[in-house]
């Protein structure tokens, strides 16, 4: 007698099982097929083209009503199965019971919903089936703003589809880069760039706090406090195997329904297939393994030996124009080796991970033509030792050219500015080279490029080698570190001319050879970005040395020192009392007067920092930035207020300067002093910037040093008013911020560019002085703030000063 086979779920996995069964033996089973959706099987992975309008639903149907009828499959579509009675071997549907001999559970998975307030509002939609897709299409017709929560495969396909439908789309992603499970950071950056180029806004590290709205979602509130207006919210944050029926029937269920290699559950008459299963600890979210499972399951039902094995998977994103590929395991590791190839000019990134002469993972963006070849090498475990050198160039290339370190410069458009001082663009330089200027001197003479401050010399030399090829032997300049062949100066200029505004952009566009830099380049690149793009770039604390991340100086025993600001060296009894109280309360072992006219509390425990800062903030004291590559102190003498020799109010000017400059980040530390007369009690002539007051005004000095090297200042200029003194000093600080190499003090930088050049920029050229001072003010609008107050008041940041957990305490037994 024909056996009764009941299948729960008419999805992609069970569809394949039915096809295999009918192919092998159409009369083996009498099949009843339940589906909660009011329709049969369709190609779920093609929902995205339906959403974007490239395809219609009819085009993606895989099994039509006619097909089921012709093959004698009894369909119970639009009917939920509510229970499985294993005792009686009966499946209970909403509209009646059906007995089975064999049962297949193929219920797929359910979208994961983050239980934030408002998640159940009607226009908050997940992305799983045709109804969701239609709901999104309808919403796109009505509203204009969509917020997609989740920057994985599904979320991005939803975002691209909604954008095609004319909505303004923002993607919120919790992690640092998009599709972090399939892509590394560099590929994630390129993907983001492509999505942004088509008008989609991407916010990473964005945690959703709530969905706001009365009766329907109107906005999404982030943990950061930002709110985004929304007419439609799509939640695509992951899926969870749909196991409820199996759990209720007391089958073995872990994260998914547990099956053996024959796809049998813990009940030998019940099988499971698709996204609802767990096999050997693995869950499944792509169709390729489900098709393998379907074949095995059909064989098992027909009594044929067969076993399912887990294979490597490859991912592609179905968004036109975003060409990405990821396969295998691409985390680095002790015995693993990375091969990275970047072609900034074409937006290409490829990374191969090799272990014991086998390729085990690949991530590619921009050019994925060789993806299937690499995937084959991964699956087959091919020994690649012979072709290791040229592997990354793919199957077509076994010659051995190397990645071109000059491609960043080659990629610049002719109108890109190379020499900022003289406004010379790439096109002018290349035509000069073609016109016979074949060395640096000739180019300087002809175009003035690199003839002023000289920081673009490296780029001009690279242009010479790009244009002249082997005919030009460039002198070797020191690259920043092993991650790149570019010098600091090159990177600074390229950040400006290519408008690179994130670290991932710098790594990709300038061809970094490591995935995310090292302790040498990361702080430098972070500084360059924040100095050049104060509004667009967000300072990255994780790319800073510990002192600047914790806003305190680490001591050799791992404790910290706390130095509050005393403006111009002036303090009050209240401030001194607050400092004394804090020293008592936190058992500060050492209290010292510093060389910068203020008080240092040494030996504070890391965990106490936020609390001691709060206390000091309470008395109006703020961070003295004694730890930073930024403004430290402005020392003053008593000046006209008390001293019989004083010519100007040196204390007053010092306080004004300190209030104007504090909080700014500079390439290295910046110390100032103001002396009230040439007797110079504030020692202004060995400071980075010093002011000597004289009867007729203010002498501004620059480039002093009193550290390992001792150097007196040189006079930059003399001005008549305090106001002008502050303007010149702002401009001086800004020109140093914009041009110097990271970790060069002013005197070192001056030795390279020359005081004369600085004079032409800020003494002679008043327009430029004004523009520099304005850019400084703009940057200060972001950075002139007390980091102590920020850290002490932000609970999340504050928590990071304490241990994450204490496991030394034994639980009571």
């Amino acid at each position, binding site marked *: 007698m024909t056996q009764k086979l009941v299948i729960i779920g008419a999805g992609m996995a069970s569809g394949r099982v039915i096809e295999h069964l009918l192919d092998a033996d159409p009369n083996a089973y009498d099949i009843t097929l339940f589906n909660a959706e009011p329709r049969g099987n369709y190609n779920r992975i093609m929902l995205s083209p339906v959403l974007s309008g490239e395809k219609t639903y009819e085009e993606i149907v895989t099994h039509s009503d006619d097909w089921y009828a012709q093959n004698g499959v009894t369909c119970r579509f639009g009917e939920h199965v509510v229970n499985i009675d294993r005792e009686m071997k009966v499946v209970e549907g909403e509209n009646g019971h059906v007995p089975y001999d064999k049962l297949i559970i193929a219920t797929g998975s359910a979208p994961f919903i983050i239980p934030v307030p408002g998640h159940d509002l009607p226009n908050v939609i997940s992305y799983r089936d045709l109804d969701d897709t239609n709901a999104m299409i309808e919403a796109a017709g009505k509203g204009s703003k969509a917020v997609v929560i989740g920057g994985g495969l599904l979320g991005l396909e939803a975002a691209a589809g909604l954008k095609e439908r004319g909505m303004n789309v923002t993607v919120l992603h919790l*992690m640092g880069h998009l599709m972090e499970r399939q892509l590394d950071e560099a590929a994630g950056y390129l993907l983001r760039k492509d999505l942004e180029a088509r008008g989609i806004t991407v916010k990473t590290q964005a945690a959703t706090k709530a969905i706001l709205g009365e009766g329907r979602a109107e906005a999404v509130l982030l943990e950061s406090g930002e709110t985004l207006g929304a007419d439609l919210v799509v939640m695509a944050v992951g899926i969870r195997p749909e196991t409820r029926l199996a759990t209720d029937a007391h089958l073995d269920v872990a994260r998914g329904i547990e099956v053996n290699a024959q796809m049998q559950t813990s009940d030998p008459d019940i099988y499971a297939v698709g996204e609802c299963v767990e096999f050997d600890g693995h869950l499944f979210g792509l169709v390729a393994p489900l098709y393998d499972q379907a074949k095995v399951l059909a064989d098992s039902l027909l009594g044929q030996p067969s076993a399912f094995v887990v294979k490597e998977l490859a991912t592609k994103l179905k968004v036109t124009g975003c060409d990405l590929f990821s396969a295998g395991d691409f985390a*680095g590791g002790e015995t693993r080796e990375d091969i990275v190839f970047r072609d900034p000019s074409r937006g290409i990134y490829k990374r191969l991970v090799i272990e014991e002469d086998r390729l085990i993972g690949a991530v590619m963006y921009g050019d994925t033509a060789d993806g299937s070849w690499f995937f084959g090498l991964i699956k087959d475990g091919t020994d690649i030792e012979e072709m290791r050198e040229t592997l990354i160039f793919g199957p077509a290339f076994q010659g051995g050219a190397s990645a071109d370190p000059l491609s960043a410069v080659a990629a610049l458009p002719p109108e890109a500015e190379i020499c900022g001082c003289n406004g010379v663009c790439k096109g002018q330089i290349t035509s000069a080279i073609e016109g016979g200027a074949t060395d640096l001197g000739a180019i300087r003479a002809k175009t003035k490029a690199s003839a002023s401050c000289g920081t673009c010399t490296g780029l001009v030399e690279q242009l010479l080698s790009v244009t002249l090829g082997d005919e030009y032997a460039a002198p070797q300049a020191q690259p920043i570190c092993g991650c790149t062949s570019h010098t600091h100066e090159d990177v600074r200029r390229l950040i400006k001319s290519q408008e690179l505004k994130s670290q991932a952009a710098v790594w990709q566009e300038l061809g970094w050879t490591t995935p995310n830099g*090292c302790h040498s380049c990361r702080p430098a690149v972070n500084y360059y970005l924040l100095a050049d793009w104060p509004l667009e770039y967000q300072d990255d604390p994780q790319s800073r040395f510990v002192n600047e991340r914790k806003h305190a100086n*680490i001591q050799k025993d791992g404790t910290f020192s706390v130095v509050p600001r005393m403006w111009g060296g002036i303090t009050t009894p209240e401030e001194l009392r607050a400092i004394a109280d804090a020293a008592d309360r936190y058992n500060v072992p050492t209290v010292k007067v510093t060389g910068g006219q203020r008080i240092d509390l040494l030996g504070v425990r890391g965990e106490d920092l936020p609390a001691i800062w709060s206390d000091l903030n309470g008395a109006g004291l703020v961070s003295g930035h004694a730890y930073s590559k930024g403004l430290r102190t402005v020392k003053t003498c008593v000046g006209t207020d008390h001293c019989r020799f004083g010519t100007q109010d040196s204390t007053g000017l010092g306080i004004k300067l300190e209030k104007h400059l504090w909080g700014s980040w500079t390439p290295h530390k910046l110390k100032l002093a103001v002396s009230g007369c040439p007797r110079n009690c504030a020692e202004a002539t060995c400071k980075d910037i010093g002011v000597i007051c004289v009867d007729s005004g203010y002498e501004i000095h620059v480039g002093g040093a009193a550290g390992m090297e001792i150097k007196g200042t040189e006079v930059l200029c003399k001005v008549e008013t305090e106001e002008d003194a502050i303007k010149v000093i702002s401009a001086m600080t800004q020109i140093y911020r914009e041009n110097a190499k990271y970790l060069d003090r002013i005197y070192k930088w001056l030795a390279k560019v020359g005081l004369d050049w600085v004079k032409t920029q800020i003494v002679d050229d008043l327009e430029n002085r004004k523009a520099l001072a304005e850019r400084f003010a703009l940057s200060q609008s972001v950075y002139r703030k007390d980091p102590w107050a920020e850290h002490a008041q932000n609970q999340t940041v504050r928590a990071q000063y304490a241990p*994450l957990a204490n496991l030394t305490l034994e*639980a009571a037994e």
Partner: protein
Amino acid sequence: MNWIDIGPIDSIPLYGARVIKTPVGCVALFRTGQDEVFAADDRCPHKGGPLSEGIVHGQSVTCPLHNWVFDLNIGEAQGADEGRISTYPVRVEAGRLLIDGNAIGKRSAA
């Protein structure tokens, strides 16, 4: 193994680290740019620098005191420097950080 839940993965900043106190001393949990998590001693074998305060890059951390670089997979100092830190099994499951209690000297909670 005896997996102990430490908290959500976002309690460690990306490219950052947090310390947990354990019977074997302070252990630093590092989170890389690729969202992998590693656990290792917080104390640098050179002069005791707190590694959790270092810069995390690739799968390495640089000590904040004198720039020794440690591979977090094996705990070995890189380049010319010689020394190693102990590493401990950690994993991330459903966004939670789990550390092997046996390895850090905790008796099983049974």
